[in-house]
């Protein structure tokens, strides 16, 4: 199933102002893999993601998405293969109703109207929001917007899903729901995120970026325990892998407090 793979080979991209976006990134993501791309701010995650949907064409090196090498000529084919969910759903939703928004992609692909209706409803049901179909997108809550943004991409049946910070701005329950949803997809997934706990829950593989280069690429559970690597990359161990810091802090305080309480007692006794 070569149409589900992403292969980057010594990918370089420099912005017109001379800033380096990515500098020699190589990896191969195969069918059905779920990969987290993590790194500090400015590490090159967004630049990399913008290559995956053909917005940027590499200055050097190559990128192969599905059956096509990424070139200006192939951009449309690449975009049909890759479904990109943006960080801000407000950038992604622009039609007057949720239904129109989710139908935007399929209609552009030239599907007949009855088929469009079926795939729109199917996509909305997959993300659990068929009841929102007649609502204007800008009036939805953050979690609902995110669900609709994902549906607007799923309706085009992409082989590969690319997401930029899918869990940002979500309340804990919506975040949990999103994690469940992502785990239910069988697509090849590439998720750029700072939410390392989500990376642990959703992605079996992680690529760590730092200053535009891959500093590590391997099993999520292994990499996110490597404190030296995380420190070097400007990251921290996911909370679920730490000994609960809140409880540790509380214990420390309790010990401190008991000392303080004891002190005046001693004073009273001596007085």
């Amino acid at each position, binding site marked *: 199933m070569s149409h589900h793979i992403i292969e980057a080979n010594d990918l370089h991209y420099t912005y017109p102002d001379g800033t380096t976006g990515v500098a020699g990134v190589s990896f191969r993501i195969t069918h059905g893999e779920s990969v987290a791309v993590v790194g500090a701010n400015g590490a090159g995650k967004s630049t990399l993601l913008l290559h995956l949907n053909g917005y940027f064409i590499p200055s050097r090196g190559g990128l192969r998405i599905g059956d096509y090498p990424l070139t200006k000529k192939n951009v449309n084919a690449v*975009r049909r293969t890759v479904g990109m969910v*943006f960080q801000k759903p407000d950038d*992604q939703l622009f039609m*007057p109703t949720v239904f129109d928004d989710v*139908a*935007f992609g399929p*209609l*552009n692909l030239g599907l007949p109207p009855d088929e469009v209706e079926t795939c729109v409803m199917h996509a909305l049901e997959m993300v659990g929001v068929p009841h929102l179909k007649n609502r*204007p997108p800008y009036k939805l809550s953050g979690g609902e917007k995110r669900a609709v943004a994902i549906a607007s991409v799923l309706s*085009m049946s992409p082989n590969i899903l690319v997401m930029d910070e899918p869990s940002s701005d979500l309340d804990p329950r919506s975040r949990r729901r999103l994690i469940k949803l992502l785990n239910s997809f069988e697509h090849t997934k590439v998720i750029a995120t700072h939410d390392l706990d989500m990376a642990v829950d959703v992605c079996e593989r992680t690529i760590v970026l730092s200053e535009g280069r891959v500093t590590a690429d391997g099993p999520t559970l292994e990499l996110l325990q490597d404190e030296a690597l995380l420190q070097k990359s400007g990251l921290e161990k996911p909370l679920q892998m730490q000994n609960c810091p809140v409880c540790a802090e509380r214990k420390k305080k309790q010990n401190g407090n008991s000392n303080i309480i004891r002190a005046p007692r001693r004073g009273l006794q001596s007085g």
Partner: protein
Amino acid sequence: MATIDRHFFDIGYMDTLSSQHTAVHQLDPRAKLLTTLVFVVTVVSFGKYEISALLPFFIYPMVLCVVGNVPPAFLLKKLVLVSPFAIMLGIFNPLLDSDILIRLAGVEVSGGWVSFASILIRFVLTVGVALTLIAVTGFNAVCMALEKLGTPKVFVVQLLFLHRYMFVLVDEAARIFRARALRSFGGQASGIKSYGSIVGQLLLRTIDRAQRIYLAMSCRGFEGHVHVMRSHRIGYREIGFIVGWSLFFILMRFYNLPVLMGKILTELFR
């Protein structure tokens, strides 16, 4: 700041109004657009001193508002907002044209004042009916109708983007002004100087955001054509709507209804 926020929600309210399901909303957008065009052409075709013959034309927007469940107060507020343009157009007429045209109960009214009033009435009618059309049809549907009636696609897409990016612009502006107001402590620290950088910021931010939106559209196969899945067709109701109203407008163009009614009434009481 609060004003910007409020107007932003007002624009959104227009979309809410257009998503209703009244008899007017269900008409094919092309029928409403064509009828509105006939209306506008007829209204602007009157002579510059015409006032009384224009009055029956208020019936059309009023009927659309009542049947389409559009609150007239909302439209009036929008009219007041853009009225300075019309006022500027006609404000010098009373100075330039001071010949006495009519005497009303001993009060002499110059031609300038009459033509000024005529400009204002025409402004209220044409802009009012355009706003009503959008409120009972939806901006995207109006654009779709324009395209189906043969307007070049490039203009239609420009209009669609104008509508879409207007939200982006207002949204960004509201954020900047909110941030400024929160740190300017009752206007103390907010000199006119800060407006230069605010406008610059607004431009850059809007371009950035517009690019992201365009990217999102391109990612979903946008190639210059916005498809909307609504099956509309011109049926008997639509033909009746266009023909009925257009006949009414043309009749009102050639027969001054208020004058005729006045004559009938004076005959009756004689």
